[in-house]
């Protein structure tokens, strides 16, 4: 194994390695590649939106195509870019942070990724098969149930498959974090990123089933003639909105909590201080997650639920500002009195604070029901959620990428290009979205394909589009940076940032078994403790012994491929009988793979102690 790794391998061998890998570090790479690809696609869609809105009554794209583009922009960014990129960072960092050799279920980890990837591909296949979904990322019925063509069917099947992958990923991290922490790593000694991954996984576990149910109902209405949402047959359209947001609101926290963890680790590392108010940070995270499930109807203030429901959901929503505020001030206090290094990672984290504070502010403003009667479904809301999702999630992902890039790839991203990316993106972002608060209040509803002349909306939209070009430029520079660092990047040592947590105790990139001997954890920021006590490295918690490793497997890829094929079958059985072939054929592939997995014993293999000793030299 070690000899093979040292040699230059053929492209085919590398590809096969990635298709069959169950190593969390390689799955992290896959998530970054997949999520990155969809991020670029979603960004391209964003640029089409902004170019269309550069001037009043523009005819750059048609109304139908525009609806597809904004639907796919939202769906892609949330489900196929932000979440997978976060799952990528989790896979890269969490097992290392808690001192584990892998996740609890390596096979499921791979299955989760391939389900996401094939779900995302299925969804995007709609572009080539007569039109993408065009009912918005929320797919409100009856617009979605009555949408002609198969666009919405691709939405239903694609998200169902990708969602199953996310659910599997979430469960995997729950079990990993509960069961596989190194000796001495109690819950209250866990780095914040591991904590927020844990809480996020709980959110995934409870939120995604609501989406699954909603998607099934929509699927049955569209494909099998049921009438869950058909008012004329006794159905109810509001039910969809409830189901969607019971999933959809926690989803917002699924996107933001992991980056809260990233920022916590980053601020403490680059201020050379332990996190201020660690316990409060943990409980604030739990509280935000809990309240996240209690506030879904604030997306529905204008539905007509009545003043009692509206008031209760308004107050519950405002309450979330309290734990979030605690976090912001604790981060500031972490830096207070510290010795702050400002590099690209820190720039993204520092840029996050004012941006996210503004997003949080407007969040409270939107929670004020009667004020929301004006904001709702306008560009004010578009501005608000981009401030939290871009200002929180995207900034967090960028901070996380720059932070863990050396650990993942053994090379440091270029600082000059990193700073150029940050500044252009940051300035472009505020240019694009700040003005949208005003556009919304000046009468611009969201999801408008054109805005009319002579309504006072021209200048704001023009500025917004100019900002979008700045952001696009920033992203391009980042891509150049990635390629540059792969070719000429500075090699990273085990601990390039003077880190505090376990991932910085092993080589960059880490050996495939992570820790030769599991480390003994003696407190919060274990590496920092060893450094301050003059040892600089971890004490092992066990004698050197054989390491048990899982075998690579092609089954997860095939299982997901089967569902991908079956997805087409479900969609087209409405029109063509031959599609049943795809439906049953695809399901058969998946089921046979599942059977193989169940019947064939796979005990993995051991790395003998002697080999590990040999490597130590």
């Amino acid at each position: 194994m070690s000899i093979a790794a040292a040699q230059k391998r053929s492209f085919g061998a590398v590809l096969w390695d990635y298709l069959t890998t169950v190593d969390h570090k390689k799955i992290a790479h896959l998530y970054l590649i997949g999520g990155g690809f969809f991020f670029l696609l979603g960004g391209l869609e964003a640029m089409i939106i902004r170019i269309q809105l550069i001037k009043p009554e523009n005819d750059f794209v048609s109304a139908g195509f525009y609806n597809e583009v904004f639907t796919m922009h939202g769906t892609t960014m949330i489900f196929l870019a932000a979440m997978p990129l976060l799952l990528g960072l989790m896979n890269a960092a969490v097992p290392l942070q808690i001192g584990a050799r892998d996740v609890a279920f390596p096979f499921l980890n791979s299955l989760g990724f391939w389900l996401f990837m094939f779900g995302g591909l299925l969804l995007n296949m709609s572009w080539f098969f007569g039109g993408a979904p065009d009912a918005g990322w929320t797919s409100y019925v009856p617009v979605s149930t009555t949408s002609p063509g198969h666009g919405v069917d691709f939405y239903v099947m694609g998200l169902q498959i990708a969602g199953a992958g996310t659910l599997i990923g979430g469960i995997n991290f729950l079990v990993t974090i509960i069961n596989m922490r190194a000796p001495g790593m109690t819950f209250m000694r866990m780095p914040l990123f591991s904590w927020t991954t844990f809480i996020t996984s709980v959110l995934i576990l409870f939120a995604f089933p609501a989406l699954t149910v909603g998607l099934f109902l929509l699927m049955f209405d569209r494909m099998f003639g049921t009438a869950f949402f058909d008012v004329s047959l006794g159905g109810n359209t509001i039910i969809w909105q409830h189901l969607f947001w019971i999933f959809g609101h926690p989803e917002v926290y699924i996107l933001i909590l992991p980056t809260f963890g990233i920022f916590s680790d980053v601020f403490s590392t680059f201020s050379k201080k332990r996190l201020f108010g660690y316990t409060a940070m943990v409980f604030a995270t739990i509280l935000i997650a809990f309240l996240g499930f209690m506030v879904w109807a604030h997306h529905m203030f204008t539905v007509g639920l009545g003043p009692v429901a509206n008031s209760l959901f308004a107050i519950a929503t405002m309450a979330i500002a309290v734990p979030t505020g605690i976090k912001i001030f604790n981060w500031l206090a972490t830096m207070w009195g510290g010795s702050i290094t400002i590099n690209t990672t820190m720039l993204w984290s520092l840029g996050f604070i004012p941006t996210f504070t503004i997003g949080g502010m407007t969040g409270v403003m939107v929670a004020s029901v009667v004020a929301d009667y004006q904001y709702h479904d306008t560009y004010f809301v578009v501005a608000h959620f981009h401030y939290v999702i871009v200002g929180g999630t995207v900034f967090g992902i960028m901070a996380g990428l720059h932070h863990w890039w050396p650990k993942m790839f053994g090379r440091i991203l270029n600082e000059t290009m990193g700073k150029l990316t940050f500044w252009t993106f940051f300035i472009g972002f505020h240019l694009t979205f700040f003005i949208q608060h005003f556009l919304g209040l000046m009468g611009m509803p969201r999801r408008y394909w054109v805005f009319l002349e002579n309504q006072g909306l021209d200048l704001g939209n023009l500025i917004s589009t100019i900002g979008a070009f700045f952001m696009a430029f920033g992203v391009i520079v980042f891509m150049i940076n990635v390629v540059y660092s792969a070719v000429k990047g500075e090699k990273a040592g085990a601990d390039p940032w003077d880190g505090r947590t376990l991932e910085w105790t092993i080589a960059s990139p880490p050996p495939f078994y992570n820790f030769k001997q599991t480390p003994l954890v003696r407190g919060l920021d274990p590496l920092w403790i060893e450094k301050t006590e003059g040892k600089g490295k971890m004490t092992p918690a066990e004698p050197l012994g054989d390491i048990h490793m899982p075998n690579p497997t092609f089954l997860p890829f095939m299982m997901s491929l089967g569902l991908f094929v079956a997805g087409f079958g479900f969609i087209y059985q409405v029109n063509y009988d031959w599609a049943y072939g795809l439906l049953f054929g695809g399901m058969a592939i998946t089921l046979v793979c599942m059977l193989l997995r169940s019947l064939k014993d796979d005990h993995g293999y051991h790395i003998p102690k002697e080999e590990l000793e040999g490597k130590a030299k």
Partner: protein
Amino acid sequence: MKGWMGKIRAVFLLGLTALVLSACGRENLTALDPKGYGAQKSFDLIILSTVVMLFVLAAVMVVYTIVLIKYRKKKGQEDYIPKQVEGNKTLETIWTIIPIILLLIIAVPTVTATFDLADTSGSDDHMNIQVTGNQYWWHFNYEGQEIQTSQDMYIPVGEKVYLNMKSADVTHSFWLPTVTGKMDVNPDNENTMYIEAYEEGVYWGKCAEFCGPAHSLMDFKVIAVSQDEFDQWVADMQNVDPDAEPDSAVAQDGKALFEENNCMGCHAIGSSPVQVGPNLTDFGNRSKLAGTEEMNKENLVQWIMDPESMKPGNKMTGNYPEVSKDEAGKIAEYLLQLKPSEITPESAKD
């Protein structure tokens, strides 16, 4: 001390108001220059919550700036190890309690206003209009008054008008920013809200809930006129004879063509209830064609010949026999003379 705080607040509020008003958009479309009951309630809360939240932002930014200036790593400090502080109960309690108080300042008036605007118990004593959302136009039925209009809704200024809203197809949202906030128009149930315009004027309304390809073109107008003018308008509308022959010969031909092509299968003139297409009783007085286009013969001819080019996804396309440009011109001539009242959007400018 108190006077000093007051002064700062006054200057701050004035500055904010100036900022908001200088860029507040078109005066009959913006939510930032309210001219009606609901919009005023919303605006008050927008300002209140903005002020409270800017206070929070200021607090964050002050600490942030100090941190960035004071605690950056300086030259020669490479080996400096700051004190590892665990936390501070007092500080953390302070930044838990202050936000709670600030939120209460917003929450209490929010709840009051929510209940106020949801109180529709007075609907029996006021005018009621049944609003129906359709892809992609609005229908207004003046309950008990035998008046049906589409796209343009006339109301008396300074009076509460109750809107009972339901959708004929998908979910829409009725939004009249300058007069009131929005409310969804669902196919499931009837939602009721009341509006009151403080000033005469033509207010621009929009559909705010995504409803299909022409969502962004689903505009309507609410025309607030004086009570006398409104009474006149009601009388005129009630006296409409849908079968009246137009004056000019061209328009008479147009009327014949209108009937021949079975336009009445979808549209109505007079007080017939909601149909597949908009009611055309006061078509000639409408401020805009199809809600968004300029009202002139040229546009109308284009609309009749190819509605798809002006409103993608509408239900008129392909549902009537093809008409020549000449025929369309005659129909247009007929429709444009449907002006049952002297009260027009022009009347709303006092």
